[in-house]
């Protein structure tokens, strides 16, 4: 596995039975907002256990892509296979099940409920997944180094701590995939390092991780980087 390699379109097209199974597979994935195409015919495969970064300038469509593969949004055209199942045509109810069962989401803006403590924010994901388990939620917070901060409200935590609560919430239900949208975008260097170490640890444990970032230094720490420009995939030379 080459650290920080930027694959070519041709490389992606090759089907290799020796490689791990594809967990995310898109074909002609397109998302339009009126006349604007935020995504324009994206074909790609992300395999089980990969740590993939998605890079590109602002407006290149990387967040739109992440929203679609995390089942938060729908494509306008094309197909999206998750573990071989076409989810692009699923009803919202079924997509909600996928979100809570298989995907852990980490947001740039953290999106913590302001009136719930750190522990309760983690338990909220448990609440919508199955049953609330305080011990499990505490363990998740301990894992991100926030065991002592469980009773604090988001407003009482630093940005880095809030993002770590967000990561604890993302992994509390043991999802197979972590999808992170600019998770270090609002953090200082030290917290960026902590968050990236956490993601690297989760990757080593076998989870598939997709990291949307505009930071090449972070992209270098992933297995491979997919580059978007103007809603299309390009190779490292900017070629379509």
């Amino acid at each position, binding site marked *: 596995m080459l650290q920080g390699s930027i694959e070519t379109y041709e490389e992606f097209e090759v089907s290799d039975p020796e490689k791990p199974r594809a967990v995310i597979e898109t074909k002609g994935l397109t998302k339009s907002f009126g006349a604007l195409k935020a995504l324009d015919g994206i074909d790609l495969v992300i395999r089980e256990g990969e740590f993939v970064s998605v890079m590109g300038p602002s407006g290149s469509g990387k967040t739109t892509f992440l929203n679609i593969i995390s089942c938060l949004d729908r494509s306008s055209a094309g197909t999206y296979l998750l573990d071989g199942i076409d989810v692009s045509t699923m009803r919202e*109810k079924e997509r909600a099940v996928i979100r809570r069962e298989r995907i852990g989401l980490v947001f740039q803006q953290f999106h913590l409920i302001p009136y*719930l403590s750190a522990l309760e924010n983690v*338990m909220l994901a448990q609440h*919508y997944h199955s049953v609330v388990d305080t011990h499990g939620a505490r363990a998740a917070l301990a894992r991100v180094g926030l065991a002592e901060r469980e009773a604090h409200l988001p407003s009482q935590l630093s940005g880095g701590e809030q993002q770590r609560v967000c990561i604890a919430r993302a992994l509390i239900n043991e999802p197979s995939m972590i999808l992170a949208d600019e998770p270090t975008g609002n953090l200082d260097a030290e917290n960026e390092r902590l968050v990236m170490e956490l993601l690297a640890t989760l990757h080593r444990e076998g989870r598939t991780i997709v990291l949307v970032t505009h930071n090449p230094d972070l992209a270098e720490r992933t297995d491979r980087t997919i580059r978007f420009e103007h809603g299309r995939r390009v190779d490292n030379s900017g070629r379509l």
Partner: protein
Amino acid sequence: MFSRLLTQSFRRDWRRKLLAILTIALATTLMTALASLSIDVGDKMAREMKAYGSNIHVVPKSESIPLVIGGVDYNPLTGRDFLQEADLPKIKDIFWRNNITGLSPFLPVKVAMTRAGDGGDTGSEVQLLGTYFKKPIKVEGSEDFMTGVTTTNAFWRIDGAWPAEGALDEVAVGEGLARNRAIAAGDTLSLAAQDGGAPRKVTVTGIVTAGGAEDGQILAPLALAQDLSGHVGKVASVDVTALTIPENDLSRRARHDPSGLDAEEYDTWYCSAYVSAIVHQIEEALPDASARPIWQVADSEGVVIGKIQLLMLVVALAAFASSAMVISSLLNTAVMERSREIGLMKALGASRAAILALFVGEAVVIGIIGGLIGAAIGAGLAQVIGVTVFGSAIAFPAIVILVVVVGSVLIALAGSILPSRTIAGLAPVETLYGRR
């Protein structure tokens, strides 16, 4: 977790929740007061309406035989048959005795009236109506029962004083007769029976305004009429006021033919305060009497009370609808303000039902708290209305609290229908990224 979310929602957004609770409380206050009044208004209004006249007329059975040809009554017994004054207490001994609120016996006598100072005037023929004015009668097994026209015809007005009960030398004169013959309170009249008995000198104690035929008559104590007519211990008719419930199909069928009812229907009818059932029971108590409801009064009572209850229902529904709209507006604003939170919940995989449960839960809590507050205030308001309008407290059945609280929860739920649709329409990706 659900209760934590619910509690926190109330704690951090208490102003809006308080406003919603007050809205519900206001509506349920009105609903409670109207419900209590609606339940009790039948009795209250019936009592009020009894002031405008009796609703049952009792005559000797012979007079009930119809023999009217061309509008002329050819019944030879009319005016010749009588009821016994001594039987009057029996009317207060029927099954619905407590619903009998007044009775007045009548005995009309034609007399020749001469006003003192009219010189050799032989007198003109006028009708003297003997009755009770305010006479307690003994009823077996209970307190004395106050009878007389001051009870059954409370709308009659007297300028002066009513004649003393049982007095043979005092009368009141109808307003029309007094005006025509220039009679005033304090005048002395000479009354002679038509059979030529010795004339009696009586003093006019007051001038009566009755608004009916009595305005052209002399009103006298029953004893004087009996003395003048020679029918001692007898009365020609009795007017009875009774608290009744509005007629329905059962009572209408019974009115025509009680024997046509089956046993169960008969029991239901007999044990309900329909005017027809009370009339039937009076005839059982007085076998020689025929009791007839005065349908204009009995029917109009039901119609008026029915209309009042309908009006209350309309007002209650208007309160229900308006408060539901306020709740809907408040909840919808809350949903929009919390759209990012809702988007996050959806992103975490919360089902639409789970999010709806949170808002519906809030609505139910608001409904219960608002309903209980409204029920308490409404109960008090009903009492104030009862005392102010009817002069007595309103009965407040406990079931009203349950009905009103359930009603207020329904208001809150009705108000959460539109916000629920808003929640359903929120896409997580739009709310999380502030596009909505």
